[in-house]
């Protein structure tokens, strides 16, 4: 992707790629022209132009909700694009099914691993070779010679592919029983087994530890060199992205905001702002503990998601939890609200333990949650949604409370009789916040309130959070937009793979170089140190 975006025209820029001869000027492996898709009036991806060379490793990066996975879904025809064309080796893939696109030469992995969990690792890979196997149903049922010949060939090829990650020894293990990192690797091998010309990797390093990630980096290069294919990856681990990719494309709000080499991207002010946000003003504070979380441990099945986290929120404070995808921020909030259970420790709200009462009772103790992805009731009106927020409150003057929320969000007042599903993303976020405020909570928790919103709306949302804070509402905020969150927060905690790795006042953390480095990666070619750099 040695091109710089200049409107819709692509201008070649010099690249410092590892591969000496760039082959982009022959026929590119993949070309997207003016690609776009609309979901219910919302432009999820718009005017997406990208060209990938035949043996290029390219990265697709951007904040949460920027539309990166949607691009992959468009490329594989899981979603049919509303506009634009995709040329795979010069061939238009328009109207093909996902299976046909795979046959045409695009292999992919998924953000949330999608293995065939009940099949063995080898069987997973052999399914992907199905199109290259040449025996029919009766050969299989009657075990004719063709069956044995083809099965043997496939078996050997599967082992050969597994060898890339030195995973032959788990060939007969059930895929679903493998550790997380191994499952990610099997998914890559499976995609390779379809004989792709372009390999799409969706967050291949998510959930991997630093040494696994380092291995992965080496292996991505090795795969490209061995198979001579193009690789496009979506990744939040900036060390990996900056080290392994030859070209980067940054997406925000479904639009490309920058293209270029990793070095260029790291210096690009638009990109820095997209990742870290703009700073906001600070409020004042007073002390009396509202929430105290002491040594909680949370598991998803056998995965240890939260490893002994402790923190506290004082009255009137904004406290923020920041960290990478999968660090455990949302899990922490869901544990406090009672949707998940901690195996150890305690959680107290206003000195009352809340860790062993059902979630709907937690609300009665004065906790309100504004969940990730907003989760408003799409089939209920704005007013009904607000009423649900005050469901547990007795002796409430519903109209007065609604008016209070409408004062904060005049926009909602205009739409009071509209169905939730017809609101725009920003309005839905306002509704989710208004709904949480209806119960006059002692503590309001917000999970990623700015996710997927346009910059102007993000600013508005943060202004609102700030004014709620000034009114004395205590807020626990989980945010991707670290800069914005820290600039309005009194204190912050940095989470990494289920542990708190740094804490301090908002100003301290803001000033610390650790944050920028964590979000955009360190110097190029810098290897992660043994303690583990920040993987955001």
């Amino acid at each position: 992707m040695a091109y710089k975006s200049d409107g819709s025209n692509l201008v070649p820029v010099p690249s410092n790629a590892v591969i000496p001869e760039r082959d982009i000027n022959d026929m590119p492996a993949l070309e997207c022209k003016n690609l776009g898709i609309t979901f219910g009036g919302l432009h999820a991806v718009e005017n997406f132009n990208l060209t990938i060379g035949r043996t290029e490793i390219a990265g697709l990066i951007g904040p949460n909700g920027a539309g990166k996975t949607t691009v992959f879904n468009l490329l594989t025809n899981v979603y049919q694009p509303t506009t634009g064309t995709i040329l795979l080796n010069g061939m238009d893939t328009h109207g093909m099914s996902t299976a046909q696109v795979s046959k045409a030469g695009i292999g992919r992995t998924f953000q949330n691993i999608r293995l065939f969990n009940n099949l063995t690792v080898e069987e997973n890979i052999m399914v992907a070779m199905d199109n290259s196997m040449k025996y029919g149903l009766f050969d299989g049922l009657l075990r004719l010679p063709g069956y044995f010949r083809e099965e043997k060939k496939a078996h050997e090829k599967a082992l050969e592919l597994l060898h890339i990650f030195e995973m032959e020894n788990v060939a007969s293990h059930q895929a679903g029983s493998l550790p997380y990192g191994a499952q990610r690797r099997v998914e890559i091998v499976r995609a390779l087994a379809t004989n792709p010309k372009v390999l799409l990797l969706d967050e291949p390093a998510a959930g991997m530890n630093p040494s696994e990630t380092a291995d992965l980096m080496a292996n991505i290069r090795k795969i490209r060199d061995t198979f001579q294919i193009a690789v496009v990856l979506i990744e939040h681990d900036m060390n990996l992205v900056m080290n392994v990719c030859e070209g980067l494309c940054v997406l925000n709000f479904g639009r490309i905001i920058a293209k270029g080499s990793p070095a260029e991207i790291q210096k690009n002010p638009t990109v820095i702002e997209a990742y870290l946000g703009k700073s906001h003003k600070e409020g004042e504070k007073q002390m009396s503990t509202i929430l105290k979380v002491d040594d909680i441990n949370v598991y998803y099945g056998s995965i240890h998601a939260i490893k002994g986290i402790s923190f506290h929120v004082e009255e009137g404070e904004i406290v923020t939890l920041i960290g990478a995808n999968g660090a455990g921020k949302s899990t922490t909030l869901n544990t406090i609200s009672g949707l998940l259970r901690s195996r150890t420790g305690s959680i107290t709200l206003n000195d009352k333990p809340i860790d062993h009462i059902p979630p709907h009772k937690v609300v009665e103790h004065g906790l309100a949650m504004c969940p990730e992805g907003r989760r408003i009731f799409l089939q209920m009106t704005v007013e009904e949604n607000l009423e649900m927020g005050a469901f547990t409150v007795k002796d409430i003057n519903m109209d007065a409370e609604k008016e209070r929320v409408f004062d904060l969000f005049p926009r909602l007042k205009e739409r009071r009789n509209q169905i939730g599903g017809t609101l725009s993303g920003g309005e839905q976020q306002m509704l989710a916040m208004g709904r949480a405020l209806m119960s006059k909570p002692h503590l309001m928790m917000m999970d990623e309130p700015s996710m997927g919103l346009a910059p102007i709306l993000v600013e508005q949302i943060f202004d609102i959070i700030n004014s709620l804070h000034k009114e004395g509402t205590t807020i626990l905020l989980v945010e991707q937009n670290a800069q914005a969150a820290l600039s309005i927060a009194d204190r912050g905690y940095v989470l990494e793979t289920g542990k708190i790795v740094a804490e301090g006042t908002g100003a301290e953390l803001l000033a610390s170089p650790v944050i920028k480095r964590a979000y955009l990666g360190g110097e190029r070619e810098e290897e992660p140190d043994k303690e583990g750099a920040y993987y955001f």
Partner: protein
Amino acid sequence: MRFLSFLISGLSLGSIYAIIALGYTMVYGIAKMLNFAHGDVIMVGSYICFFAMMRYNLPPVVGVLLAVIVCTVLGMVIERAAYKPLRQAPSLAVLITAIGVSYFLQNAAQLLWTSSPKVFPSIIGNGKIQLGELTISHVTLLTVVVCLVIMFALTWFTGNTKMGKAMRACSEDKGAAQLMGIDVNGTISMTFAIGSGLAAIAGVLLCSAYPTLVPTTGSMPGIKAFTAAVFGGIGSIPGAFLGGLLLGVIETFAKAYISTQLSDAVVFSVLIIVLLVRPAGLLGKVINEKV
């Protein structure tokens, strides 16, 4: 005129299906399960009403009321004992349990009340209204009216009461509903109670129109009503209403104009064709899996 009288009896049969289908659809909407025992709750309701009227000589109104109360409690007990422990289990396991409950109710009824058919008494006499050439029996009229009343009452209930709104919230997003402080388990229990109460009313109406009562009385109307709920788009209250009425009318017309014996084949063929054109039923919404 023949057409009109078929249409009316079709609407009457459809009304019964609609009331049963409402129970199916509400439970499905909130608990995402097919409550196969629903048809048998109808049968229990009919028996309660029958014994109240025939053995204890209670007035019909008391009989119906008693049936509603017993079925409401029964519905809640079934939910608590058999379905609640399986909230996290795969849907097939819940389905099989529901089938088990259905067998249980049928066989318990057979033991308690024997399998010899009971002739259900008329609850409002055999009166008829004559409109020119058209004759409409009181039972037919009552059935349609009751169905309309239930439909409007339910629409009002889910739209205007706190409990009704909680039910809608739960059926849309249980997690978010919990965060609002809604007791999801209590709401599900309430839904079963309402659905089962409606089943009792449907049972009495069914047996008033087709007065032979046996322990398997509820099975076939149950399956048909379930079909009606899917027909209209399962989970949707107006869908169940529409699906029920249409199914009743189609069935009656098929009996009248095609063949009595093949009416079921016609009804189910129409269902398959409708689902081919609208894979989520008439008023249902197709939900795509997130990738």
